[in-house]
């Protein structure tokens, strides 16, 4: 039953062929059995899950079940879950039991989903390989010597290995799409402000956005219906009624105008990945789309601008982890300064410290204009670039990442090379746009994702394109051999 999509499981629960308790137990057993190979979970919540499943079955018996009632899912460990350890992948929060639920968790709970556990991630979502986690690296289910991508690597790996039908993720510079690409699943980063950030541990507030990680676009649409919507607790939440994300799934792609940015296909792109993407674009054309080359001339500026803005915001967002009220505190602090220095020095990993230093530097007196203000100007140019492109095309397509999964340790000591794995995804966050990664094929036995970028609020159309592509292809149905049974 683990190879079924969320939609198929929902039908089985509805028909009575399956109970939520059975389904939940099955996934809990699979996690226990198989996750030691992947390390995709930081914690599992067996008792909570079975209690929730029992209630879901009762609700169904009482005739008040929705499409997600009784469906087990996993939450990235960046979402606060009441009474459950919430670590953000950091030693800093190894002892932190959240006193409240994130809005995403609260909404999915209300829709009837079951929480299987909390997934592993790069520390504070800073990383593209899931190697910066205090809880150890996550392995790619397609080849456990390879990284699953990051920062939502645990969520991507557990869905790819069918340890959970779906998972939540967050995407600040590609953290949903890049691991979705590397693990061969479907990931959606919605328009900034579509999903509340309340209870989502902040990395870079102006870029962070939650989204679903699923097998299919149809599953993602169902998850979006539950996750999105205005939240008065988040001032950046968009105050308008959320659409029905399933409404356009079955529309035709006839007349769809696809733009291919030439900057996404130049040097730096792995040739195997390029082949996969070109084939996928041909498949889209066969569905009635027309394709043209476009230019996003600011592409090269995105990574440098991002690595000023994101660390700047992070340096401030992470100040609250000071060893005073919760989280890690060093032993026997000599005085206040010692308490701060050692708690933060011992509690944060190397990459997090690197980004705090970069960010504090970019904001400091005398450098603020040259770095932060300049980066904000570039951000505006990038947004203008996209606006111009969307005057001409409906959707922009290209690779999600420049390569398939790389080997564990391969880039761990080379931050610049690591940062470049998000070269195609980062601009989307800077512009606040929605984008997806959809399984499109394999190179050297590892999955490759096709990225689709839409204009603001075009999620129903993106899901439509992805769904039609998945009706015509079966890349999203492939499972790694070791995790098929």
């Amino acid at each position, binding site marked *: 039953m683990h190879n079924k999509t969320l939609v198929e499981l929902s039908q089985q629960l509805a028909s009575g062929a399956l109970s939520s308790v059975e389904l939940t137990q099955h996934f809990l057993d699979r996690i226990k059995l198989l996750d030691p190979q992947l390390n995709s979970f930081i914690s599992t919540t067996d008792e909570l899950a079975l209690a929730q499943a029992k209630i879901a079955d009762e609700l169904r018996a009482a005739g008040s079940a929705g499409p997600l009632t009784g469906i087990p899912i996993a939450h990235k460990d960046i979402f606060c879950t009441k009474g459950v350890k919430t670590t953000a992948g950091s030693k800093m929060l190894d002892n932190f039991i959240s*006193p409240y639920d994130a809005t995403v968790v609260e909404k999915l709970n209300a829709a009837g989903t079951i929480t299987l556990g909390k997934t592993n991630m790069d520390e504070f979502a800073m990383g593209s390989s899931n190697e910066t986690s205090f809880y150890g690296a996550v392995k790619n289910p397609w080849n456990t010597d390879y990284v699953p991508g990051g920062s939502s690597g645990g969520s991507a790996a557990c869905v790819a290995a069918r340890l959970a039908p779906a998972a939540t993720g967050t995407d600040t510079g590609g953290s949903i799409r890049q691991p979705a690409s590397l693990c061969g699943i479907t990931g959606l980063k919605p328009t900034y402000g579509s999903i509340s950030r309340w209870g989502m541990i902040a990395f870079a507030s102006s870029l962070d956005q939650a989204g679903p990680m699923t097998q299919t676009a149809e599953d993602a649409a169902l998850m979006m219906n539950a996750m999105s919507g205005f939240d008065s607790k988040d001032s950046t939440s968009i105050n308008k009624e959320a659409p029905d994300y399933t409404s356009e799934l079955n529309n035709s792609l006839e007349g769809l105008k696809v733009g291919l940015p030439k900057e996404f296909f130049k040097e730096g792109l792995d040739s195997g990945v390029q082949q996969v993407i070109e084939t996928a674009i041909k498949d889209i054309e066969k569905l009635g789309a027309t394709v043209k080359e476009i230019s996003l001339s600011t592409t090269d500026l995105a990574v440098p601008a991002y690595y000023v803005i994101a660390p700047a915001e992070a340096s401030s967002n992470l100040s609250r982890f000071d060893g005073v009220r919760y989280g890690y505190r060093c032993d026997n602090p000599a005085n206040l300064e010692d308490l701060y220095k050692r708690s933060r020095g011992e509690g944060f990993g190397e990459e997090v410290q690197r980004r705090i230093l970069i960010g504090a530097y970019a*904001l400091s007196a005398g450098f603020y204009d040259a770095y932060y203000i300049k980066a904000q100007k570039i951000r505006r140019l990038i947004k203008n670039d996209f606006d111009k492109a969307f005057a001409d095309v409906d959707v922009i397509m290209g690779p999600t990442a420049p390569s398939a999964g790389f080997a564990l340790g391969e880039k761990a000591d080379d931050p610049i090379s690591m940062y470049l794995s998000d070269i195609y995804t980062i601009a989307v966050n800077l512009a606040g746009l929605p984008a997806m990664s959809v399984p499109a094929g394999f190179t050297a036995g590892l999955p490759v994702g096709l990225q689709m970028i839409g204009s603001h609020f075009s999620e129903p159309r993106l899901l439509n394109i992805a769904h039609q592509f998945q009706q015509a292809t079966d890349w999203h149905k492939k499972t790694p051999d070791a995790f098929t049974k």
Partner: protein
Amino acid sequence: MAWETVIGLEIHVQLSTQSKIFSGSATTFGAEPNTQASLVDLGMPGVLPVLNEDAIKKAITFGVAIDAKINQKSVFARKNYFYPDLPKGYQISQLDLPIVDIGHLDIALEDGTVKRIGVTRAHLEEDAGKSLHEDYHGMTGIDLNRAGTPLLEIVSEPDMRSAEEAIAYVKSVHALIQYLDISDGNMAEGSMRCDINISMRPKGQEEYGTRTETKNVNSFRFIEKAIRGEVIRQIDELEAGNKINQETRLYDSAKDETRSMRSKEEANDYRYFPDPDLLPVITTDEYIQNLRDNLPELPDQKIERFQKEYELKEYDARVLAASKQLADYFETVVATSGAKAKLAANWVTSELLGALNKAGKGIQDSPVSAELLGGMLKRIADNTISGKAGKIVFEGLLNGEGSADEIIKAKDLIQETDTGAIEALVDEVIANNPAQVEQFLAAEKDKRKKLIGFFVGQIMKASKGKANPQQVNQLLGQKLK
């Protein structure tokens, strides 16, 4: 050398909103530690600020009252620094685009002149919590009840030239925020705190000298003392040929001196940047105009009205309008007593304020309510008691002996207005003092006025203060011819 003092003030005013500026927690003063601290106030992982609209409303109300430019796009920024009572490691404040831009406030000086003080800006920010260093066996306790209380920081231009001007300005701001009902202005509870920037320059020089900033002074008296002390210290330094260090100083009220806290070199780099969790605040013309149209009566308007409506002298009107509570008290006294406003003004400004000053109390702590005082003045106005007896009744009111009527009855103070009875007393006093009568009758007319006082005094004494003085005077005039 003759030195000129240059003073600029930053006044932090706690706004009297029901809940905090970025969370729903209550702002009541004096609650048990950490009982008014929500997830947001504690700076929990994942929490977000949501702006309290009432704070914006109160800030703009202040802005329109000082005729300031309101920035219709206003931005919140993060001021980053580490301190245990600052849970997020940053304070949400405003740097560029504060809600209130340049405005001004007129202050009345003791010599009767009016001086205009420029207000550079007033911005919104959140207050920090409190560190409690006592009672924890060498450790520090943290109370986050105050964390997130809305503050309006009002920054003046360096327009004041003496401690007197500075105090007049602080008092004006204090009165204004109470008139506007945007703060309780309770300085003892920290609702208004002051940072004082002071520099000296040779008289006639245009360029400013190097300034020091004395932090967190929280009473009128301390502000005055801190300024006087710092001015003397700076002059001493300058006259000894030393330079003034640009630094932050602390006023120690116990020792009555300021001392250095940190120099410019040690100053924090706050790494301000716009808070990405909060959108810019956009206010419309209509919103601002509506607040302007609904401004309550302001101090200057009240002073003018008091002069017209109650025929008070400007000085009395100013004294009474100095605080909204005092002005309200006065108007209640007038309304309950039905007495002439001038009489009410005299009693409030001299007897009542005198007694309160002596007891070190403010009008809000007056043991005599406006209604009680009004009740007494009513009895003076209707001739039930004399003004002199009024003082006895007032003592009784101060001591909580009941209402004026009760005290008058208990002390038997009802004025004697029976002409026959008074006449008997007058005759008696005249008969008993033949020498004084002879002296009086022999005196020149203009000296008689003084001599008649003796007889009045004797008669009042004989009546135990109850005889109506006008009647006594009249009868004496008839009989001593």
